[in-house]
């Protein structure tokens, strides 16, 4: 048996290698080349090839000569209907490519390193504040975003960006209690249902808390009559003891698939986010949600443009597109979170709206008044200490 120099295996490996090298080279060279002409801002630079003709672009695409061929969108996973990006590309000839992060801290680290190349990012409330303080965001030119008028005025001017210079609300939600009506026929209206040892132990092994130091300790502080952001050591110690007493009767701390355990009735009462509860309710009608009378939290994700974004104008045009009533409704029908877009609300899928309404998830003015923001600064470190003490026991 001879070992042939040109064995088929070797040829296969060699050709595979060559193909991959070529593919890698092609994809790396074509990307910058395609966007090259855009950055030099040549006045008559033709827009993308897919756009029909410059004058045929719909009005919402803005000034075609300033549009980039590509927009880099950095977003939470499963937080954007891909059809919306496709529709925008078809109308305006801008290809939106999306990348994924899974925590605000990841996003901040990425932007801090600089030169990230992203044009549009979606930080949560406190992360917007951090990014503004670090000079990592670009002020928005509202002249390019007239649809900002569609946003609920009650959700503008929040603490992290009081003048909305850098951020516009994207989607929002709340944190409260999810429960199963078969176990709670009279409903739930107080944090006592999950923190009072006598009450929670009636559902021993069927109760869960979010695995999140700010949410869980904050809810405890709220139950005890303090603020979600209270860093007083005595109050934190009380919260720790309350959590330790409660832990005896919990099924566990769960923020990843609490919606599954709610839907499958493995858990009858849970500290939960509104969006996940809506998903659980879409599977099991017995699941309902409440913001307890003591109060819950509100969170907001926001559209912002990084300070060193290459395609600022295009990003503003895309933000404006997302804020139109139809697209705003399409987005929230997809994400299952609340839309801050007042004009989009009448266009929401009636089934989805009914699900929120009957599930106790809708936020009216009375509920809104009970909601508190989770804020972060150097003193928040005490939450980590308390949480470690709770989880280690």
């Amino acid at each position, binding site marked *: 048996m001879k070992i042939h120099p040109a064995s088929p295996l070797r040829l296969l490996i060699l050709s595979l290698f060559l193909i991959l090298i070529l593919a890698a080279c092609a994809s790396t060279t074509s990307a910058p080349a395609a966007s090259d002409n855009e950055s030099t801002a040549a006045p008559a630079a033709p827009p993308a090839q897919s756009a029909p003709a410059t004058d045929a672009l719909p009005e919402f695409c803005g000034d075609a000569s300033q549009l980039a061929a590509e927009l880099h969108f950095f977003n*939470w996973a499963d937080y954007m209907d891909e059809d919306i990006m*496709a529709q925008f590309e078809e109308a305006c000839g801008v290809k939106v490519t999306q990348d994924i992060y899974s925590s605000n801290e990841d996003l901040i680290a990425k932007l801090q390193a600089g030169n990230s190349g992203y044009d549009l990012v979606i930080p949560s409330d406190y992360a917007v504040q951090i990014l503004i303080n670090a000079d990592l965001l670009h002020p928005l030119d509202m002249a390019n975003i007239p649809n900002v008028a569609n946003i609920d005025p009650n959700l503008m001017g929040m603490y992290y960006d009081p003048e909305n210079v850098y951020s516009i609300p994207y989607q929002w939600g709340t944190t409260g209690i999810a429960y199963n009506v078969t176990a709670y026929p009279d409903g739930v209206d107080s944090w006592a249902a999950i923190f009072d040892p006598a009450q929670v132990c009636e559902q021993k092994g069927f109760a869960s808390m979010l695995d999140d130091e700010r949410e869980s300790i904050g809810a405890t502080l709220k139950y005890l009559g303090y603020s979600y952001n209270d860093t007083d050591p005595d109050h934190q110690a009380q919260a720790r003891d309350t959590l330790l007493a409660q832990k005896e009767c919990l099924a566990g701390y769960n923020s990843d698939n609490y919606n599954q*355990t709610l839907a499958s009735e493995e858990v009858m009462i849970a500290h939960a986010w509104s969006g996940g509860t809506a998903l659980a309710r879409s599977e099991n009608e017995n699941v309902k949600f409440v913001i307890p009378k003591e109060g819950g939290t509100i969170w907001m994700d926001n559209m912002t443009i990084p300070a060193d974004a290459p395609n600022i104008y295009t990003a503003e045009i895309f933000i404006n597109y997302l804020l139109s009533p139809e697209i705003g409704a399409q987005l929230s029908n997809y994400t299952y979170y609340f839309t801050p877009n007042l004009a989009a609300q009448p266009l929401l899928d009636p089934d989805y709206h009914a699900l929120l309404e009957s599930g106790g998830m809708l936020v009216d003015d009375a509920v809104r008044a009970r909601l508190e923001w989770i804020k972060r600064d150097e003193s928040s470190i005490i939450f980590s200490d308390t949480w470690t003490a709770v989880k280690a026991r």
Partner: protein
Amino acid sequence: MNERQTPGNRFLRWGKRLLWANMIFSFLFLYLPIVILVAFSFNDSKLGARWVGFTTQWYVSMAQSEAILTAMENSLIVAFVSTIIATILGTMTAMAMERFRFPFQRTYDGILYLPVIIPDIVMAVSLLAFFSLLLGGANDLLGLSGNAALRPGLVTVIIAHVAFNISFVAIVVRTSLGELDPGLEEAAQDLGANEWTTFRRVTLPLIMPGILGGALLAFTLSLDDFVITFFTTGPGGTTLPIEVFGRIRRAISPEINAISTVMLLVSMILVIVSQLVQRRTVALSSSPVKESQ
């Protein structure tokens, strides 16, 4: 390999049974979760909390999701290219370490193991700092800005994966090189083969199982990596682990089970192919040197 029969040794027979039971439990322990994962990828429920009915809709929606397909493509490109480069460089490193003597060799030896030992996150953060310094410097030097600027992307991810995979490949290949009988190479050279021919006809076929093992390890590690990839990637460079991890934040949907099942299938095919190839090379190399002239 060879059965050593000691008739009448009851203890050994019991030991054998216990080992069998242990093996069966180990396999159950390893594979039951995977079986459940595959089964639930066909579950007709959005949350996948309990069995509702059979469906293939999650595979359909997976195949229609641009995000998932792009992530899959990115993952495969990164894994293939970085594996090939790391295998070549790692094998060369192993040859140098094993065949030659040079100053500070022990130090190099120690440094080689470092990427295997240091936590991913340390490597990730250092690579992030390195690339942002490097690319920033290059952009300033070449006067590039806006969309023309050089920035992290799949290329930086590939470089990072090569960086940690070289060590793994080198360590595996060194083991095969160490087991190689130097007499075989000497014999080939005695018979008139020059160094290159010796390497190609004798050394390479004999260490091929080691190289393939190293390559397979590198491929798996690359396909699997989240932390280093996240910190070194850029626009358009989302890989499958990043996509999946991001989605889990929301809900562990059957779609993720479907993706995992497909990945499982790819890995299984890979293992089978590598075993077939290894068997072939072993068969070839066991009838070796005398026929090469």
